[in-house]
């Protein structure tokens, strides 16, 4: 009796099964629609139901450096950013309710309405600090493939659905393996690229009880002045239910 024959059969079967998974997994992901892939990528950069995180922003613009630490609480199109450091900006607040924005400062009697054009800091726009909803804010004009740091990616050409979106057009590279956004190019209405961004994901949060990789850094580089770089480091990220009162002007200053 050859006792090694069943053992070899078993090893062969296991080997065949594991090898075929390499074919099946991409097939499973290929079964996801582009919108579903984009939604998955959005999950790693915030959550439509509610997220809170701290962002340390370091901006170099025209050779001048500036730092800010901001606590952001966001839900859908609404976000509240509270400046934590340095001391001379501590307590300032930026409230965004869809396309309405207000800025409040300790000592300023009342919150001032501001326009979306007013910048946060350096190359970071107000919309960059809130959670991302590219799947909802943009339509996919074209899908192709690309590489970012030798990592195979889906390349989405996105166009803003309406004027709620922060940008008119984005080219977005999403990792095929990890389903997270790795790189973005941002364009004006006239088609001119004005900044690029790269992303890292070393954080982890629980979504639906499952750990999920989460954004840890976004580096924004101006396309015009390549030395102008804004680095946003995300920390203390947590998914949480955010009540309406957080975004209420009547309760903003105390």
């Amino acid at each position, binding site marked *: 009796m050859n006792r090694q024959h069943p053992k070899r059969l078993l090893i062969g079967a296991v080997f065949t099964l594991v090898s075929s998974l390499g074919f099946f997994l991409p097939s499973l992901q290929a079964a996801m629609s582009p919108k579903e892939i984009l939604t998955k990528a959005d999950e790693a950069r915030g959550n439509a139901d509610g997220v809170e995180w701290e962002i340390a922003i370091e901006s170099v613009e025209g050779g001048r450096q500036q730092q800010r630490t901001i606590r952001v609480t966001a839900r859908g199109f609404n976000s509240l950013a509270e400046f934590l450091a340095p001391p*001379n900006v501590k307590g300032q607040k930026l409230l965004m309710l869809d396309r309405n*924005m207000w800025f409040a400062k300790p*000592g300023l009697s009342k919150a001032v*309405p501001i326009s979306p*054009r007013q910048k946060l800091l350096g190359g970071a726009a107000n919309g960059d600090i809130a959670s991302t909803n590219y799947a909802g804010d943009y339509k996919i004009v074209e899908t192709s493939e690309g590489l970012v740091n030798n990592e195979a990616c889906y390349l989405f050409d996105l166009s803003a659905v309406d*004027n709620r979106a922060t940008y008119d057009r984005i080219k977005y590279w999403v990792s095929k393996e990890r389903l997270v956004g790795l790189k973005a190019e941002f364009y004006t209405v006239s088609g001119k690229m004005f900044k690029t961004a790269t992303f890292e994901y070393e954080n982890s949060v629980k979504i639906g009880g499952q*750990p999920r990789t989460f954004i840890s850094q976004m580096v924004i580089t101006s396309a015009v002045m390549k030395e102008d770089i804004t680095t946003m480091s995300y920390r203390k990220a947590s998914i949480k239910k955010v009540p309406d009162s957080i*975004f209420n002007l*009547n309760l903003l200053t105390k």
Partner: protein
Amino acid sequence: MGMAGEGRDSDDPTIPKKLAERFSYDLRILTYGVTQDPADSKQNPKNNFLQIPHYLGGLEIRPDLRLNLDPVELSAKPRMKLEYRAWQEGFRKGDAEWKDDWYVNEWLARWKARENLFLSYGRENLQWGPSFLFSPSNPFFQDNGRRNPYLEVPGMDFGRLVWIPKSSWTLSFIANTDEGQNKPDGPNRYFISPPPPFEKTYSLKVDYTGRENYGSVILSYREHSEYLLGFFGGGTISDAVLLYGEGVIAKGNEGLYPQQDSSPFGASMQKLHQNDVDTVLLIGGSYTFERKGTLTMEYAYYSPGYSNAEADRYYSLRRKAGEAFELGGPLSGFGQMVLGQTAVTGLRLLRRNYALLQYTQTNILNVMDLTLRWTQNLDDGSFQITHVVGYSLGNHWELFSVGAVNAGNGDSEFRSILNYQWMVGVKYTL
């Protein structure tokens, strides 16, 4: 890193430690000097009536304290102000004095009864609305704090109930129960016009916030005097453009108006329009330049203000009262009384048509914030030019300068009290 719901230390912290974890504070210290030139107008002849100090020096310590005992939040803003005043004009020329003030400018106890229902009582600077020139929809404060952001608006006492039935809607019931620090001899007495006599006021405020617009309606009752329907709203027209409006319809005007009669000066100040319905409307808009600042324009129509005929009577009465006061004769005391009425008419503005042009730019070269403002009285031609500059010296220190220059003839609104005022100072934030 950043994992939600991480396990906590199993040792239960002591109560003092828990309180310490929920306590936070800020500390700001300001020191400043002010030079101001009293206008030699008939309202204040030779500065003997208002006795405005020519020089002021101030040191203010401003701690803000907060304790979060969810669902209760407590906060307090105690203040210490040490002020030096020196006179260069009038009876008090050569006088100097020191004054210290210890007070709580604001405090608040807020209870979150439910996630969408809040009750609070405390002393607050309760402001709202998008306008810079003034806030007609606000029945509580005449000063909206926009002219000099380094001066704190004195707080008043309010009870509030805030209910958020849906994310887009808020309903507030507000009771203004006491004048608090907002009184004629309050902490800013040399910087702003004195407030009118206090009356308890009750308001119902309804707020709506849409996708790119917002609006509010405020129904108010001021005891013994006025019913007011305030409103404001605005919209984000594009990435660069905001439009807004604000106003009030009021029944019951407690302002003083000049009436010809048989008084020694041929006229006197009287409440003539207590049953009138008045309208105040302000419209404005702003444009933000790419990588630069924001230009704002406003126009306000203030119907309770004086007409040309009323203004002529007012200035004539004021001239006669001022001359009587200066002469020191038998009518001097009467003149002084009338000057008190012409100085505080109970009206927010003296005339009917105003315009504002403002340029604001923040973070210039990463260190400077700048505001330049032109406020024009379109009826009498007088105007005021204001600058506000803040310059950062590192993360804690800020140099600031706030100045106002008034122009117009002697019988005009902006030249009645001061020719100019300039404040320069340093702020330290811990």
